[in-house]
C-alpha cells in the first residue's frame, strides 16, 4: 500500500502490521496528550510539584533528553569537524535521535511553565545573566540546526526526492552540512553547559552550587562533557535496540566501535573531572557553607537520597562503562558493549536527576526538612509521551527514509521487494524491543 514511499532495496513489514504498531504506540502518546490538556486547562496543580520542588520530573526529563540528544552534536562534530568519516553511517540516526530529543525537550518546556502563553517572554525580555535564557536561546537555535540537519534526510524519501527542487535542496544542504554542524556544536556546547549552570549558579543551594571560571560554574563544563560522552552512548544504545527490534544489522561494527571508543575516552575524561569536582566540592565548597558531604546523603526520609547515588553515578555508571568502552575487548563483546552504553546512559540520567531533584530536596534552612516528591500520573504520562513520540518518529523515519546507509549492503535482498517478510517485530516483541529503560527519546 505504501510501498511507493519505502526506500528502494530494503524490506519493511506489511502495512497493516505497521499501522497496528503505530496505533499501539500512538495510544500511549494520546494518554500523554490528554495529560497535557489537563495541565493546560487546569494548571500545574495537576502535578505533584510544590513550592519546594519547583523543578521536578519534567525538568529532569528535559535535562536528560537534551544530554542524551547530545549524540547528535557530538557525532556531527566528530564527523564534520574532526573528520571521522566512518561516522557518516550513523550520523543520520544520531541526528534523528537528537531531533526527537530536542523536540521533546521543547515540548516539555512548553507545558512545564506556568504561563505557556507567554513563555516567549524568555526571548523577548531576555535576561542574559540567566542560565535558563542561555539554554532557551541555544536550545531553540540548535533545534533549528537539527531541523536543518534532518531535512535533507527527509527530502531523500523516494517520492520527495523525485521533485527536482527538493532533490537539489537536499544535495546542497549536504554539501555545506559542516557549517551547520559547526554551528550546532557551538550552540550545543553552550546550552548543554548552561543546563549544567542551572544548578551550578544557585549559590543558595549548596548541593548544586559550584565554583567555576568567569560566569560558568564547573557544572557547566561537566554537563557539556557528560553530554558529549553519554549522547553517543545513547545513539549506540538506540541503534542496538533498533537492530534488535527489526532483527537485522543496520550499522557496521567498526562504526559502532569507533563511536564507542571515542565515547569511552570522553567518559574517562569526564569521570576524572567529575571525581575531582566531587572531591573539591565535598572537601571545600560544601564545608565553606557549613555542610559535610554526608549532610547531603543522610537522614532523609526513607533514605531515598543515600550515598549509594554517588557510588552508582560515579562508579557503576561512570568508571565501569568507561573502562569497558576504552578496552578493545569490551567494545567487541556485544553484551559488554550494550551494558556499557546502557550504564553510561543511566549514569547521565542519574546525574541529571541528582542535579535537579536532590538539589531541591536537601534542606538548606536548618529548621526545614527534606522535601519529598512523587510524580503525579499526569507528570508520568507527559514524560512517557516523548518516548512514544520518539518511537513513532523512529518507526516512520526508518520505514520511509534511508536512515541507515549501510542497511542495503548489510541486508541484501534477492527478490526485488518482498513485503511479506516481517521486519518489524512480532506482535509480542515490540514492547520488548522498543520499551526497555532508555527509549528513543530517553526518558
Amino acid at each position, binding site marked *: 500500500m505504501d510501498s511507493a514511499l519505502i526506500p528502494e532495496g530494503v524490506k519493511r513489514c506489511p502495512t497493516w502490521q505497521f499501522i497496528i504498531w503505530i496505533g499501539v504506540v500512538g495510544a500511549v502518546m494520546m494518554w500523554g496528550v490528554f495529560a497535557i490538556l489537563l495541565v493546560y486547562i487546569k494548571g500545574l496543580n495537576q502535578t505533584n510539584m510544590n513550592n519546594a520542588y519547583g523543578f521536578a520530573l519534567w525538568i529532569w526529563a528535559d535535562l536528560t533528553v537534551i544530554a542524551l540528544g547530545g549524540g547528535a552534536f557530538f557525532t556531527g562534530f566528530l564527523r564534520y569537524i574532526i573528520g571521522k568519516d566512518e561516522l557518516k553511517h550513523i550520523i543520520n540516526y544520531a541526528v534523528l535521535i537528537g531531533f526527537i530529543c530536542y523536540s521533546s525537550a521543547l515540548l516539555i518546556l512548553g507545558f512545564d511553565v506556568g504561563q505557556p502563553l507567554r513563555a516567549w517572554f524568555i526571548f*523577548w*525580555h*531576555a535576561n*542574559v545573566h540567566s542560565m535558563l535564557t542561555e539554554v532557551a*536561546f541555544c536550545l531553540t*537555535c540548535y533545534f533549528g*540546526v537539527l531541523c536543518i540537519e534532518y531535512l535533507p534526510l527527509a527530502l531523500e524519501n523516494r517520492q520527495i526526492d523525485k521533485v527536482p527542487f527538493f532533490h537539489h535542496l537536499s544535495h546542497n544542504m549536504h554539501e555545506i552540512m559542516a557549517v551547520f554542524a559547526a*554551528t550546532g556544536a557551538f550552540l550545543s556546547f553552550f546550552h548543554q553547559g548552561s543546563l549544567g549552570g542551572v544548578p551550578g549558579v544557585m549559590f543558595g543551594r549548596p548541593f548544586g552550587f559550584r565554583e567555576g571560571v568567569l560566569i560558568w560554574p564547573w557544572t557547566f563544563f561537566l554537563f557539556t562533557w557528560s553530554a558529549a560522552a553519554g549522547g553517543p552512548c545513547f545513539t549506540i544504545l538506540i541503534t542496538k535496540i533498533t537492530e534488535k527490534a527489526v532483527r537485522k544489522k543496520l550499522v557496521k561494527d567498526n562504526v559502532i566501535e569507533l563511536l564507542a571508543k571515542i565515547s569511552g575516552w570522553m567518559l574517562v575524561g569526564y569521570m576524572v573531572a567529575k571525581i575531582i569536582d566531587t572531591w573539591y566540592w565535598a572537601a571545600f565548597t560544601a564545608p565553606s557553607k557549613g555542610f559535610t558531604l554526608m549532610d547531603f546523603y543522610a537522614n532523609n526520609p526513607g533514605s531515598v537520597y543515600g550515598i549509594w547515588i554517588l557510588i552508582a553515578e560515579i562508579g557503576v555508571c561512570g568508571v565501569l562503562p568507561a573502562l569497558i568502552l576504552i578496552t578493545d575487548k569490551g567494545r567487541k563483546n556485544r553484551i559488554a558493549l550494550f551494558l556499557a552504553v546502557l550504564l553510561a546512559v543511566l549514569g547521565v540520567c542519574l546525574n541529571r536527576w541528582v542535579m535537579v531533584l536532590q538539589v531541591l530536596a536537601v534542606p538548606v534552612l536548618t529548621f526545614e526538612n527534606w522535601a519529598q516528591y512523587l510524580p503525579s500520573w499526569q507528570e508520568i504520562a507527559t514524560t512517557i509521551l516523548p518516548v512514544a513520540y520518539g518511537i513513532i518518529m523512529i518507526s516512520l523515519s526508518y520505514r520511509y527514509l534511508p536512515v541507515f546507509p549501510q542497511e542495503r549492503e548489510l541486508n541484501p535482498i534477492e527478490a526485488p521487494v518482498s513485503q511479506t517478510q516481517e521486519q518489524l517485530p512480532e506482535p509480542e516483541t515490540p514492547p520488548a524491543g522498543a520499551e526497555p529503560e532508555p527509549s528513543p527519546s530517553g526518558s
Partner: protein
Amino acid sequence: MFPFSFEWIWDMGHMVFHGGLWYALSIMGLGLTYCIIKAAVDTAKGKGGYHH
C-alpha cells in the same frame, strides 16, 4: 532580544550574549538561504541527479 526591549543594556554581557546569538542565527539563515537559492538555480538549470 532586540535593542528596543527595555531591558536592553549596551553592556558587555549583552553584547557577548546577543553577539553570539545573532552570529549563530545569521550563519543558519545565510546557509539555509544559500541552499534554497542554489537549489532553485540548479532546478532551473535542469541539472541531473546525483546520489549520495
